């Protein structure tokens, strides 16, 4: 094998560069199908071709063979003789994968077996050829030169193809030493030049003639033979090759002999003709590169897309055997095979910028030194400023060299998705957005595997099989979207699919089955929490372990890997709609923005990624804001309970304080936060903070270190979150936010899991970086989900309490200045203001001309024993609509709408037209009975009802079952039902109503129920009635005080027939009548 370090490196680098674009090109070609994009195919063809050319020269026979087979197929596609269908492209892709793999392990490449690939490719080539030409593909011929030497084993197919294209075929003999090195030429460049005017069929080096190190005599010539075809006429050939005509052989048909060589034998270069003796003598020892026959470590360019795992596995094995062989021979050391140190491609402009900055830095340093030595404060300051700026710029630029577009890993997924979906028989499109987003190289490398896993998961489990998708009316082709974007100094990567989504029930059942959670725990979980169980260690969603994603790694591995990078993962899934997984990553790991905090004497850094907000609870509010739940301190933050974690406690830092009296450090014995105030009073006998304000200034002056004085008695909390944890970190002081450089901790501190590393602060001291997630674990903190549940339970309890009371919207107003009244808002039509002078007194009744008609006006004192209206220039009128007729009630402002719990006292202040009283906003308020009022004033409006009631009595009374927990409403509603002639059976709650229904099932005609009741609510009652075979025919009318949309929806689900507002007597009765009359 050729082992010139530089040339080999150059070849590998170039080849890998060629290969890097091939995948996407091939996929595009596949998409195009019969519409062959010649340019694109040519691209790929050229890549294969130049790889082949170089490989022949380097003696990399395996690579050459494979590249050659690939080239043949591509050539057919290029000539429109072959349609690039997915199967063929697959073979090509696999071939190129293998090629790339060989490139990366160049030293062992010749030991690899590529016959499968070569065979598959040859089959394609064959299939496209007419029958009689099939032999050509695998046929080899020898070329017999006029001087009797034989250039053996040339592909017959190649020769035929070239000849068909009208090419002349030349066999050119170069001498690497005399023709190339001595003339300052480069063999690779030579090949490239030749490629421009024709094509290289074969290139071989006669290694035999080089000799070995042992022979001591340096080789005088290295024959390098190229089988070349070109349209250039033979007579022009010597100028083209720059060689004497005796080194150029024109191959004619009669020189071609069918080879009889055994299959698998390696083609050799033909021996060269000995040169005259004097020439040998004149030749000096060969130049350096050729002498270097020592094995070189293969250079590896880092950007190589990772090869499919299936492919890698066998390769590794092979590599191992190759390694073993070599060790036996005792030649090359084993490390030769291993990858060399990472290298990175950097934009030259960037390097130039760095160079300029370095120059600037040196200049500024000189200025600084000058300034210092001449004690010139001004100059020093200026230089300092400059260095400051340059440093920032330098940092930024250097970071940029590490930044790489995410495209390098994103594009790879096109292939992953294509191959997988094909394997699984699914049809899936991959949409990629934000390819240009840049990330630190290290992070980029580390997210490759987690992302691959997630994408595979989406393909395997997310997207349904095609026939299933059709059945449920989804587009046949599933879509997976990969998106990257910047947000708040972080990189977000979103993987979403429109598949079946995650099934929280199945996940939770699996978790139970695997013993990760108990049934009881599951029962308390929300769907989101259940979904998140998938992230637990030891969890794999695949019901069947498939080849695709069931390889023993679960989502937990993904999570762990991402968390190592300071990343966060969030799952959002809707069953049937799809899954969206969002990953948040820091831009870089080396320098991170952090919040500096301090506890005791030390400073700590909390990475900004983990920081949600900073809280400071003033001493005066500690008591009300911080509560104790069980053993844990919690803080109430915007209605949620947030667990608190005292950093000094978790880390076991002894808190000390300097006692003001004796100036000695004491151990601070305070432990709990919630009771610190009372403790302070008892233990030190000092009064409360507030009372000590005056002496504080003086105290602080004397004892700056005493942290127990007022300003520091406040509690400082850094609200942090990581993974499933979210908590408040209680610290002594919150300091600045700084960009810190992360440095690793020594091995003796590896077991301290609370730290993610250390950093050096501006003053040169070391500060530890806190690992938020591990701290939470150490403190055995409940996870966020649990915390949420606790606070949710608390919230629900409170809400339930609120709900237990009936709420209603009321309109409050005054009559006399000191009398407060309220009326149900739903009966109110509108509120008007008129001038008192427009009120007319007609027939003993007050009226006002209103909207083209006459509106009768009343005041409360006409019907109830209340004060009279004060005389004013303007008069507020509440317009009610009863029985389709309007009437106005004159009131005194302010008129306001309120929503209150109906806590009605229906005895103390009850009187005619007043239902009762309640306290609204601190005033005893009388609830006006509008119906009573209308009835009192206009009894004739109700004749119809009377008639109906009378009629009903004749026909037999209708019976209403009425369930209502509030005594006030029960009486009210029962009252007006009875007034209209119904018989009413009342129940205090749903359960009682259910019993009564069973007892009186023959009598009851209709059911009216409140919704919110103890024991059994209206929904449940309705559900029972509607699902019971005997009762399902009953109409159920729900009475509510406030009908929200959610309520209505829930009601519809259980089968409620109608909703009525409690105090809207008229509508309620109308509905009852309607249901009962047909």
């Amino acid at each position: 094998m050729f082992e010139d370090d530089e040339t080999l490196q150059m070849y590998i680098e170039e080849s890998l560069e060629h290969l890097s674009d091939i995948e996407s090109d091939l996929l595009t070609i596949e998409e195009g199908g019969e519409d062959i994009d010649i340019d694109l195919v040519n691209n790929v063809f050229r890549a294969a071709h130049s790889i082949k050319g170089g490989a022949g020269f380097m003696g990399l026979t395996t690579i050459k063979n494979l590249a050659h087979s690939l080239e043949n197929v591509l050539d057919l596609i290029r000539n429109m003789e072959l349609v690039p269908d997915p199967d063929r492209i697959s073979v090509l892709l696999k071939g190129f994968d293998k090629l790339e793999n060989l490139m990366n392990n160049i030293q062992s490449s010749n030991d690899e077996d590529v016959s499968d690939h070569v065979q598959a490719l040859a089959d394609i080539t064959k299939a496209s050829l007419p029958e009689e030409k099939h032999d050509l593909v695998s046929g080899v011929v020898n070329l017999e030169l006029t001087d009797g030497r034989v250039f053996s084993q040339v592909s017959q197919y190649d020769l035929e193809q070239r000849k068909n294209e009208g090419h002349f075929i030349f066999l050119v003999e170069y001498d690497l030493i005399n023709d190339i090195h001595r003339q300052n030429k480069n063999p690779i460049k030579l090949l490239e030049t030749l490629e421009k005017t024709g094509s290289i069929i074969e290139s071989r080096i006669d290694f035999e003639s080089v000799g070995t190190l042992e022979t001591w005599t340096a080789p005088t010539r290295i024959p390098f033979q190229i089988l070349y075809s070109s349209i250039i006429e033979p007579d022009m050939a010597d100028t083209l090759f720059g060689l004497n005509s005796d080194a150029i052989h024109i191959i004619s048909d009669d020189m071609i002999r069918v080879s009889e060589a055994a299959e698998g034998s390696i083609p050799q270069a033909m021996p060269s003709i000995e040169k005259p003796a004097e020439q040998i003598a004149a030749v000096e020892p060969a130049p350096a590169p050729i002498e270097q026959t020592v094995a070189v470590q293969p250079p590896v360019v880092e950007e190589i897309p990772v090869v499919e795992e299936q492919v890698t596995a066998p390769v590794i094995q092979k590599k191992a055997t190759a390694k073993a062989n070599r060790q036996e021979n005792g030649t090359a050391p084993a490390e030769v095979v291993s990858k060399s140190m990472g290298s990175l491609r950097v934009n030259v402009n960037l390097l130039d910028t760095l160079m300029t900055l370095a120059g600037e830095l040196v200049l500024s340093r000189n200025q600084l030194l000058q300034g210092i030595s001449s004690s010139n404060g001004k100059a020093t300051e200026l230089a300092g400023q400059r260095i400051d700026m340059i440093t920032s710029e330098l940092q930024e630029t250097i970071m940029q060299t590490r930044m790489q577009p995410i495209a390098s890993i994103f594009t790879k997924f096109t292939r992953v998705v294509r191959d997988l979906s094909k394997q699984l028989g699914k049809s899936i499109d991959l949409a990629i957005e934000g390819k240009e987003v840049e990330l630190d190289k290290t992070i980029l490398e580390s997210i490759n595997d987690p992302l691959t896993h997630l994408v595979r998961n989406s393909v395997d489990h997310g997207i349904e099989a095609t026939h299933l998708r059709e059945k449920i009316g989804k587009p046949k082709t599933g879509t997976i979207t990969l998106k990257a974007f910047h947000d708040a100094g972080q990189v977000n990567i979103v993987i979403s699919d429109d598949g079946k989504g995650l099934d929280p029930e199945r996940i939770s059942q699996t978790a139970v089955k695997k013993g990760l959670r108990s049934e009881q725990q599951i029962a308390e979980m929300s769907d989101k929490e259940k979904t998140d169980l998938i992230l637990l260690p030891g969890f794999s969603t695949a019901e069947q372990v498939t080849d695709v994603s069931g390889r023993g790694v679960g989502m937990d591995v993904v999570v762990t890997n991402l968390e190592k990078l300071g990343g966060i993962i969030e799952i959002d899934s809707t069953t049937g709609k799809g899954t969206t997984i969002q990953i948040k990553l820091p831009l870089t790991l080396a320098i991170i923005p952090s919040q500096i905090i301090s506890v005791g004497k030390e400073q700590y850094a909390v990475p900004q990624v983990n920081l949600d907000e900073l809280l400071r609870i003033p001493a005066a509010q500690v008591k009300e804001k911080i509560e104790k739940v069980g053993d844990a301190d919690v803080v109430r933050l915007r209605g949620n309970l947030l667990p608190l974690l005292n950093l000094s406690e978790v880390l076991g830092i002894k808190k000390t304080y300097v006692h003001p009296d004796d100036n000695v450090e004491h151990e601070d014995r305070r432990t709990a936060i919630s009771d610190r105030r009372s403790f302070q009073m008892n233990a030190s006998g000092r009064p409360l903070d507030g009372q000590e304000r005056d002496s504080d200034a003086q105290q602080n002056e004397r004892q700056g270190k005493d942290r127990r004085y007022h300003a520091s008695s406040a509690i400082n909390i850094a609200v942090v979150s990581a993974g499933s944890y979210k908590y408040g970190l209680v610290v002594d002081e919150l300091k600045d936010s700084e960009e810190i450089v992360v440095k690793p901790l020594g091995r003796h501190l590896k077991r301290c899991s609370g730290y993610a590393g250390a950093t050096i602060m501006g003053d040169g001291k070391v500060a530890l970086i806190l690992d938020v997630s591990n701290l939470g674990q150490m403190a055995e903190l409940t996870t966020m989900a649990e915390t949420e549940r606790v606070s949710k339970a608390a919230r629900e309890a409170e809400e339930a309490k609120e709900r237990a009371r009936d709420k209603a919207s009321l309109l409050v107003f005054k009559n006399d200045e000191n009398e407060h009244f309220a009326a149900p808002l739903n009966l109110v039509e509108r509120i008007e203001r008129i001038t008192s002078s427009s009120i007319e007194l007609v027939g003993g009744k007050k009226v006002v001309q209103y909207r083209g008609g006459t509106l009768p006006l009343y005041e409360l004192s006409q019907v109830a024993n209340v004060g009279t209206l004060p005389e004013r220039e303007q008069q507020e009128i509440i317009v009610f609509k009863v029985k389709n007729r309007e009437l106005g009630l004159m009131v005194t402002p302010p008129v306001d709408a309120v929503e209150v719990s109906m806590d009605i006292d229906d005895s103390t202040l009850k009187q005619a037209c007043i239902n009762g009283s309640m306290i609204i906003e601190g005033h005893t308020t009388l609830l006006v009975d509008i119906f009573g009022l209308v009835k009192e004033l206009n009894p004739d409006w109700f004749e119809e009802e009377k008639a109906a009631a009378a009629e009903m009595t004749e026909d037999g009374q209708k019976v209403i079952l009425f369930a209502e927990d509030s005594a006030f409403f029960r009486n009210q509603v029962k009252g007006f039902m009875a007034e209209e002639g119904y018989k009413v059976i009342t129940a205090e709650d749903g359960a009682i109503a259910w019993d009564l229904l069973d007892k009186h099932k023959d009598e009851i005609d209709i059911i009216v129920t409140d919704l919110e009741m103890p024991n059994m609510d209206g929904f449940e009652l309705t559900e029972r009635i509607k699902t019971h075979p005997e009762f399902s025919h009953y109409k159920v009318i729900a009475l509510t005080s406030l009908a929200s949309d959610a309520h209505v929806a829930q009601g519809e689900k259980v089968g409620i027939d109608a909703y009525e507002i409690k105090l809207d007597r008229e509508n309620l009765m109308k509905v009852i009548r309607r249901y009962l009359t047909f």
Partner: protein
Amino acid sequence: MNETANAIKARSMELATFYVGKALCGIDILNIQEINKHFEVTTVPQAADYVVGVLNLRGRIVTILDLGKKLGLSQIEEDKNNRNIIVRSQDEHIGLMVDSISDVVTADTDRIESSPSNINGLKGKYFQGVLKTETSLIGILDIEEVLKE
């Protein structure tokens, strides 16, 4: 010429000696990066008790161990003669806090004897050997053994 020098080198080593409690110990000077008296360490809560803290040594984070405690003696007492001996081990720098430092002694390897099971209350396993001088007994520390977590 060269060979003789190598032979001499092989036959003798230079030891930096220091006191841990009352015991005089030595470390091959080639293992030592530097000796300093920076004590502005940052304490690391939750670390093993023999960890004094971490120190910024020109941009490197160096763990400082209390050699007394590490060797199973009592804590190094705070004193103006305290020093940190920074040694290299497994690609990292680690500081050993000692009571005070003493001379650099050249020792013939021939004169180094295998260590007894106990030297002034220190376990024998921490020593590569002992060197007897006219006035004292120097225990030569096996750095890797001492630094084992």
